[in-house]
Structure formats: structure tokens, C-alpha cells
């Protein structure tokens, strides 16, 4: 069995297993699983409604940028520079913006899904990079501001190395799945 097979089998069983484990443990601990589920689901709905304005705002911004032709222009520009690294051009803005804002990067990701499809090589790669990286500058500013820290020492280099490792791993995994 190759890596692609192992990964896809694991992906298929994990959600049912998680559901089974949580509900079974709940019942074993005499939790009113259905009532609790409804309560949690209600909270989840509120969260989504809360982010709705953000999503509308950002998708409009990316939509405008895409329709104007600017994204294609940027893609061609970056493509020429990055062709030697064999990095698909539309990924670059995603990686850069993800460091500052996850929701803004999401706008670009959805654009990639629309253009290339989520199951395409580049769609899969984008999914993986988004899943294995974090918003470096946003997280650092929120946490360090709260702790009133001014000198962040080796946090940024460490964060960048972890992010780079995630990106490299994503490329490697996509390479071995798509052959």
C-alpha cells in the first residue's frame, strides 16, 4: 500500500470513529447527548452568523480583484519569478496573506477552488497549506500585546520555520499523492 492509499483510507474512517467515540463516551457517562448536541449546535450557528459579515466583505474584495484582471496580472508576474521553484503562482498570495489574516486568505482560497476545483492538484495543495499553517503576525500581536511583551526574541524565526516545514510537507504530500 502506498502513501496515497493509507492517507485516503485513514481520512475516510476518522470522522465516523470520532463521532462514535464521543457519543459512546457520552452515553457511558450518562450525558444527555442529544440535548447537549443541540445546545452546542446552537452555539456553532451563532459563530457562523458572527463571521458572515467578514466573509461577505472579503469575498466581495477578492471578487472585485479577480474580475478586474488584477489577480491574473499578479499571477503572471509571480509566475515568471517562481517558475524556477515550481511553485504554482496562485498559491503565493495565499501563503503571504495567511501570515496576517486567516479570513483574508480564505477569500483567495475560495477563488482558487472556484477556478481550479478543490480536487485539483493546486486545490488540494492549497487545502493542505491552509490546514498546516497559522496566522503568524496576528497570533503574535494578540498574545504578546496581552502579556505586554515588547521583545519577542526567537518567536518569529521559530514560527517561520514551523510554517515553512508545513508548506514543504504539503508540497511533498501532494507530490506523492498526485504522482
Amino acid at each position, binding site marked *: 500500500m502506498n502513501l496515497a492509499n493509507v492517507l*485516503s483510507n*485513514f481520512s475516510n474512517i476518522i470522522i465516523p470513529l470520532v463521532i462514535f467515540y*464521543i457519543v459512546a463516551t457520552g452515553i457511558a457517562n450518562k450525558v444527555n447527548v442529544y440535548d447537549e448536541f443541540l445546545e452546542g*449546535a446552537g452555539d456553532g450557528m451563532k459563530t457562523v452568523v458572527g463571521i458572515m459579515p467578514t*466573509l461577505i466583505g472579503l469575498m466581495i474584495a477578492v471578487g472585485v480583484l479577480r474580475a*478586474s484582471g488584477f489577480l491574473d496580472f499578479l499571477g503572471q508576474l509571480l509566475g515568471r519569478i517562481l517558475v524556477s521553484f515550481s511553485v504554482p503562482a496562485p498559491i503565493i498570495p495565499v501563503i503571504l496573506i495567511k501570515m496576517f489574516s486567516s*479570513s483574508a486568505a480564505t477569500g483567495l482560497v475560495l477563488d482558487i477552488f472556484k477556478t481550479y476545483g478543490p480536487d485539483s492538484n493546486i*486545490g488540494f495543495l492549497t487545502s493542505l497549506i491552509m490546514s498546516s499553517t*497559522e496566522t503568524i503576525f496576528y497570533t503574535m500581536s494578540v498574545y504578546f500585546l496581552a502579556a505586554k511583551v515588547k521583545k519577542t526574541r526567537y518567536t518569529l524565526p521559530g514560527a517561520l520555520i514551523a510554517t515553512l516545514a508545513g508548506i514543504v510537507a504539503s508540497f511533498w504530500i501532494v507530490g506523492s499523492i498526485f504522482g
Partner: protein
Amino acid sequence: MLNYLWAFMILTGIIYGCFHGTMAEISNAALDSAKEAVNLCITMLGVMSFWTGLMQIAQKAGIIASLTQKITPFLRFLFPSLRNEQRALEYISTNVIANILGLGWACTPAGLKAMEEMRQIQLRCGKNPDIASNEMCGFLILNISSLQLIPVNMIVYRSQYGSVNPTAIIAPAILATSFSTLAGILFLKIADARSRRHNY
């Protein structure tokens, strides 16, 4: 930050469109994107509610509390100087578990309390609280290395845009996230050891 980024995207798009004759496309895109965002939110309402509902059961069944306890030894290994700081360890483990399970609402408050607690430790040890301690740096690197195991959001987006198998990314994502976290841990252990050799 987002203020400028958002304005930049809108303004650049319209100015670029001005010169390239794509104004009609821009008007359509603005309206269509708004509609599309709402459609996406409807898909998301279902999947997110399903996930947070499950997590509510997990919380009531004590699964989250027991996971939080189980990773404490691992945190002692990562942050040896916090070995006897029960409260800081508790906040850090709550943050890490919430992160792993993708409970965004739970990780930030716990993370901020962990930072505050580590600041108190700095003050107690008579160190300058303006400078991040090794533990603060390590904790943030761990956070930024991305811990989330099941990327619920990405699964929603993929299904909305017609993926044949939206959950196909789970295992690859876990693998990629392990690499980034491993790199982060390696870095924070080396940096921690080096700074100890130089300062103490």
C-alpha cells in the same frame, strides 16, 4: 491591518479595472460574491453546528478534561521550567487541546491567560517582563505551528465547491501539521537550550 488590506483589494481592483475595461465584470463580481458568501455560510451553518454540537458532548462527557490532563507530562517536557507552575500548565494544556480539536473560541482565552500567568512568573523571578521568556516564545511557536487535527473549515469550503471527497484532506493535513509542529518543537528546544547556555 485588515482595514488597509481590504481597502487595498477593493481600490486596486477598481483602478485596475478602470484601465483594462473590466468595470462591468467588477459590478457583477461584487454582487455575485456577496450572494456566494451567503451560500457558503449556509453550508457552513450545517457542518459547523454539527462539529460544535459533538464537541459540546465531548466536553460534558469529560473527554476534553481528560485529554487536557493527559498532555501535561508532554508540556512538562516542552517547558521544563514550568514543571511546578500548575496554573500556567493548566492554561497551556487547555489552549493546546482546544487548538488540536479546532475549538477556536476556547483556545484564545486560555492562551491569553497562559501568557498572563507566564508574565507573573517572570515578575516573580525578577526578570524584565518586557522581554519574552523562553516559555512564552516556545508557547507561541507551538501555537503558530498549527495544531488543529481536523480542518473543519477547509472541509466545508471543499464541499461547497464541489469536491468529490471533501474529507480526503484529513489524513494528509494531519501529516503536514505534524511536520510543522515537529519543526516548531525542534526549534524551540534548541533555542531554549542555547539561551540557557549563554545566560545562566
